[in-house]
Structures are given as structure tokens and as C-alpha cells.
């Protein structure tokens, strides 16, 4: 797929990946072998009928392809951009074995963008409203999908969002150059068209409690409140000025548009030597934002090797193209600052890889005597996010695991009657698409629960 030139694109926040042309899309779609037992469908967390939409594209029938995708997926323009298809549908594509998988993700994006470019208003098919009220906490991918599915089934759904803009990570986490906010906005419009209500500036647990919402007639709840608690390393100097959690860095940049300061009032300070600790997608996003905010040198500092990096390969490559440097098998042990409390330097230690740990990846083992120092005036801690405890704290009967994630059974049922949960608050920080998948499954289960039916075993 064509991309903006790396030299140009680090000076702007415009979208990097430019999408397929019509010619390219049709040619790519024609590569599909039309397998009798297509493995790709099983690889999709929201069960899109991939062979069908790909065939539509191959035949130039883009509108048909659009409706085929929309039967299963509320957010195709988003998924087409941020889904790790290489680990999902494309991984199991038969062509992946000896050649190259069909670029299912690019095709999904092509169709979704075609919808936007041609101003197509998607036909919304829904069951007549029966007025049963359902509340969804959190307007990220899990909550949006759950709400959309329930609304299609005729429920009166309200999403409560604590920020002033909906979308969750789609809005505050993923940068403009990977996921334009205009696209997020259009998908939110679609959801409103299905009848979903979104109330922003509403923090469930503080603005109103779950019990209060129950007395207002909400019959069931889906908690899609996300992984909104930043993890820090726990090393000395971590609270020095210039050290950000990735959440803070990205929220200032993406939600509050600090790159347009002072026209947009939220400031951000980026020095000339930036160290990003971590190597997931969030770390890559942070590093690439730092470049665009004027940093001269940006380093990804990661304790394992490239092989173990959790980020999408595309994102790692794009970061490399843009000039991000990688300090691998390295981790910080201490940060030092000046007399005004600004970070100036990190102490780092080299690692070697040992036996696999619980994640299955080889454990980093520090090499004694390998300390060295690096001059850094900005540090972004992107080592992961955990469950935000605010709402769970108001629900003492809500069973949590040791990490603070909400414990649910295979049907997304929590320990509280009528309260379901999905997405990062259950699994820990994962992907947009897996959150969507859980939102979808939870909606089905909640429908059964609300109709007093036995929940079918999945």
C-alpha cells in the first residue's frame, strides 16, 4: 500500500497509509482462491463473511461489498486501518503458506473509504424498538460494538462516556496519522443512526452510580471501561518532569490536539532526545508522535529483541522509516534530573535472553556490569496499561482478579446480576478488534438474559 514519504510525513499528522486505488483493490481481490472451506472467516473476531465481500470487490461491486461487511462490522474504516490482520484472517489465508495472503485488511479499508468518498449512507436494518433500556459504560470499541448490536436488536441503548469526546482509544490513543478522527466521527454517526445514544462527560460511578441508573430503568449493563491505568517501571526518578505515561502523551496529542498549541489550549513539551520505554503499538505511536512534535532523536528502548516486540510489523517498519532508533535488549534502572526537576539522563542496563516467561517470550536477564547512560530530556513510559479502578471501587460485589481486571465467565457475565463486561477491562490491554469481538458476543448474551432465556452455550 502506498504511504506518505517518510521525510515529509514526520512533519505532519496526516494519514501515513494512503490506501489502495480501485485498480489495486480489484486486482488484489482477484487473487482470492475462493476456498470451499475458507479459513479466513474463522480468523475474524467479528465474523465478517470475508470470501463474499472479497468476491464483491473482485467484481467491482463495491456497494455490495460494503453491505456484506456492515452485516457484521460496525467500524470497517477503523478495523481496516488498525486490525492486526496479519495475526488473524490473513494469517490463516491459504495463500499465506507459500505466497502472500490476500490483503484482506487493505480491501476492508478500501471498501469503507469508498463508502465515505461516495457519501453512501449505509442502510441500517434493525428490529423495531421494544424500549428495554440498556446502559453501556465506555465508548471505546467494546462499548460501541456492544451498543450497536443491541440497538440493532431493538434495545434502547445509552453509552456513558467520561471524556468530552466518544471513541475511547480510537480517539485519545491512536494518532491521527494512523486513524483520522474524521473516520471515527463518521462511524459514531452511523451508530447514532442505529439509535445508539451517547452521553459524554458522564463518569459512571461518580456522575451516577450503577444502582442509581438501575432505578432509572436500565435493565442490564455492559462495562467496556478499558485499560485506562498507566503502568510505570517503579524506578528512581520516574516522577521527574518530562517523564510521561504513554496515556498522557497520546491523550494530550490526539484528544487535546497539543500539536496545534496554542490554538488548541492543551500544552505538551517534547525535548530533543526522547526515550520511549516499550515496544508495543502504543510505544510506536508515542515514538512517531514525538518525531512529529519536533524531537530530533527518538529511541525505542526495549528489554527484548525485535522478534519479541508486540507491535505490528507494519508499525515497527514505519517507525524505522521515519527515523526512530532502537535500543534493544536494554532497560532503564534510574532517571536523573537537573535542579529544577527535569529529566536529563537515564541509566540503562543491557539484557540477554533467557528461558521463556509466562507470556511464552524469552525472559530478559540483566547483564551485570553493562550499565551505561543515555542523555534523554523526554521519556515516555509505554510498558502497558491496566484496568482503571475508579468504577470497580464503587462496586464492592464486583469480582476482580489480582491485576484488577473484571472477572467474567465465558458469557461475559460478571459476578453482579445483570452486569456484563468485555474488552480491555477484562482481558488487559489488547486490540481494538478483540474488544469489538467481545462487545458483539456480550450483546448476544445480554439479549438472551434480557428476554429471560437460557443463555445458549457457546
Amino acid at each position, binding site marked *: 500500500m502506498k504511504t506518505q514519504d517518510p521525510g515529509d510525513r514526520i512533519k505532519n499528522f496526516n494519514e501515513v497509509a494512503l490506501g489502495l486505488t480501485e485498480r489495486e483493490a480489484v486486482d488484489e481481490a482477484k487473487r482470492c482462491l475462493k476456498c470451499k472451506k475458507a479459513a479466513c472467516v474463522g480468523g475474524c473476531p467479528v465474523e465478517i463473511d470475508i470470501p463474499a465481500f472479497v468476491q464483491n470487490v473482485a467484481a467491482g461491486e463495491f456497494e455490495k461489498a460494503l453491505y456484506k461487511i456492515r452485516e457484521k462490522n460496525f467500524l470497517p474504516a477503523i478495523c481496516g486501518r488498525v486490525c492486526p490482520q496479519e495475526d488473524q484472517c490473513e494469517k490463516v489465508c491459504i495463500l499465506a503458506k507459500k505466497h502472500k495472503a490476500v490483503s484482506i485488511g487493505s480491501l476492508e479499508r478500501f471498501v469503507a473509504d469508498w463508502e465515505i468518498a461516495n457519501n453512501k449512507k449505509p442502510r441500517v436494518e434493525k428490529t423495531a424498538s421494544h424500549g428495554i433500556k440498556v446502559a453501556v459504560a465506555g465508548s471505546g470499541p467494546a462499548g460501541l460494538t456492544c451498543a450497536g448490536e443491541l440497538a440493532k436488536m431493538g434495545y434502547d441503548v445509552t453509552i456513558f462516556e*467520561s*471524556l*468530552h469526546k466518544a471513541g475511547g482509544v480510537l480517539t*485519545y490513543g491512536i494518532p491521527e496519522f494512523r486513524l483520522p478522527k474524521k473516520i471515527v466521527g463518521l462511524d459514531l454517526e452511523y451508530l447514532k443512526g442505529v439509535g445508539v445514544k451517547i*452521553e*459524554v*462527560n*458522564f*463518569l459512571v460511578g*461518580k*456522575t*451516577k452510580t450503577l444502582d442509581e441508573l438501575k432505578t432509572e430503568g436500565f435493565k442490564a449493563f455492559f462495562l467496556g471501561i478499558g485499560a*485506562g*491505568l*498507566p503502568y*510505570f517501571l517503579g524506578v528512581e526518578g*520516574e*516522577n521527574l*518532569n*518530562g517523564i*510521561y*505515561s504513554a*496515556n*498522557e502523551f497520546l*491523550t*494530550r496529542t490526539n484528544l*487535546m*490536539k497539543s500539536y*496545534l*498549541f*496554542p*490554538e*488548541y*489550549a*492543551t*500544552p505538551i*513539551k517534547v525535548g530533543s532526545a526522547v526515550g520511549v520505554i516499550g515496544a508495543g503499538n502504543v510505544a510506536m505511536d508515542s515514538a512517531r508522535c514525538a518525531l512529529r512534535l519536533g524531537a530530533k532523536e527518538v529511541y525505542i528502548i526495549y528489554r527484548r529483541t525485535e522478534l519479541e516486540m508486540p507491535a505490528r510489523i507494519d508499525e515497527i517498519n514505519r517507525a524505522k522509516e521515519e527515523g526512530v532508533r532502537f535500543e534493544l535488549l536494554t532497560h532503564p534502572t534510574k532517571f536523573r534530573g537537573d535542579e*529544577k*526537576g527535569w529529566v536529563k539522563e537515564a541509566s540503562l542496563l543491557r539484557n540477554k535472553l533467557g528461558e521463556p516467561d509466562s507470556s511464552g517470550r524469552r525472559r530478559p536477564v540483566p547483564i551485570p556490569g553493562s550499565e551505561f547512560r543515555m542523555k534523554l530530556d523526554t521519556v515516555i513510559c509505554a510498558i502497558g496499561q491496566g484496568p*482503571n*479502578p*475508579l468504577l470497580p471501587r464503587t462496586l464492592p460485589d464486583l469480582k476482580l482478579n489480582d491485576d484488577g481486571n473484571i472477572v467474567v465467565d465465558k458469557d461475559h457475565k460478571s459476578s453482579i446480576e445483570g452486569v456484563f463486561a468485555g474488552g480491555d477491562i477484562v482481558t488487559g490491554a489488547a486490540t481494538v478488534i478483540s474488544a469489538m469481538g467481545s462487545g458483539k458476543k456480550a450483546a448476544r448474551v445480554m439479549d438472551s438474559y434480557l428476554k429471560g432465556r437460557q443463555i445458549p452455550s457457546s
Partner: protein
Amino acid sequence: MSHKILNKVKLNPVIWRLCLDAPLVARSAKAGQFIILRMDEKGERIPLTINDIDVKKGTITIIFQEAGATTKMLSCMEEGDFVEDVLGPLGRPTDFGKVGRVVLVAGGVGIAEILPIARYAKSLGNFVLTIIGSRTKDILILEEELKCSSDKLIVTTDDGSYGIKGLVLDPLRDAISMEKFDLCYCVGPDIMMKAVSQVTQTCGVKTLVSLDANMVDATGMCATCRVTVGGKTKFVCVDGPEFDGHLVDWDGFMKRQKRFVEEEKRALESFQAQHKNCMYKQG
């Protein structure tokens, strides 16, 4: 979702009282809590203490001091204007309960913030001594309101134009050394809260302070408001805004509060250049 400004009063040349339509906040707000306010589409999110509420009318009162561009912009709003976003009530409410004898200390716009605390303490039957400090008599605010909510009110002014001449620390030292106090509660400039905490520490009086920190989401998601308390990292937005004054790493906190001083100056200059004499209006 806009919030109408229903009333605006100037308390002194830089401190204003606004009454805002915010029924969802008013219905459950308690003393010690705050809101996040965003003026408009391009605005930043700032925390403001809730000074008073009217549940029936669905309104909240905030008292704020002009500091940066956003508070300056807010001070230029008129009755009938709108503020785009309000989120609240946030933070843990005050809950020190009936402890006996409480000494409240406040300075600057902290005087406004101590008022709901005084009312809370008094309503539970505590003996309330309130000590407030102002630079001069002319800029002293809320004296009458605090007199009504305290058993005794002491006013200090730096220049001696009213009350006792000097800082709040002297009457505080006198009070806690002469009589037993069960709790000290302090709100004001960081340097003042630090000094008060040092005084009360030597006399062994438990002290609560209310911190005002830079915030973005204010729901515990970003950690910009982090402060070290008793050697552990806490978030002002969800663990606070109240903390044990003897355990706060004051120097670290004060350094963090200066992170965006340059940007704040730029923003204020930019605002003042564009909107001379408060001609700023929405839309």
C-alpha cells in the same frame, strides 16, 4: 451539552464567583470535590473546586482566580454565556468526620476552597477555628461567609491593613501550642501548605491538605497529576485531592507544577494579544 453561566460576581480584582447550570454534578457533589471544565472545542481541561451547590436548581458555584489563558477567558464570560463541558463531581469527598476541634488554614483563592470544608466541619459538630491570610484588606474575600461557618475566625494581612499583621503561621502556632486541636486542614498556595504542614508536624497535629494539580482526563488514566505521598505515587484526581500534609513530597510536587510554565505564558500572551480588554466571546 453546554452549561449556562447563570450568575457572575467579582470578589476581588482577580477572583470570580460563577454559578453554572450543571444538574448532574449538583445532585451528588460533596465538600472537597471538584469539576473538570472545558471552555470550548479548542479548550484545555482544568480542575476547579466546587464551592457550593443547589440541588433543587441543579446549579453549582465555582470560585476561581485568574491565572492562565483559560481562567482569564472564563473571567471574561458573562451571565447567559455557555461553557462547553463540565465533568463531576470528581475526587474523594472530605470525610474526616467529627473529630473534635479543627483548625482550618487558607490563603489566596484557597480561602474560597476552605469554605465548603468549614461548613462540613461545622455541620458535624466540630469546633472550627479558621485562619485566613490575605496580602491586603482590599483583596480579602468571603470574610462574612467564613465567620458564619466558623466558631472563630482570624484574619491576617501581610501589610497589616486588617486583622493581624503577618502570615497565617503565627496565629496557627499560637493556637495549636495553647490548645489541643485534633485536625488541621489547609488549602492555599503550595508553599503555604508546605509551611503549615511543617508547623503542625512539630506539634503533632494531623494535617490534611488539598492539592491543586495540572490535569487532563482527571479519571486516573494519564498520571499527569501524580504526587509522591509517603514514598508512594498517588494521583491527585482519584486518590485525592486531599492528602496527609506530613507525607506529601512538597518539593517534588512543586517542581511538577512548573512543567508547563513556559507554555502557559505563551498561551496567556496569545490570548491577551487577541482579546484586549476582555472582548472575548464564544462563537
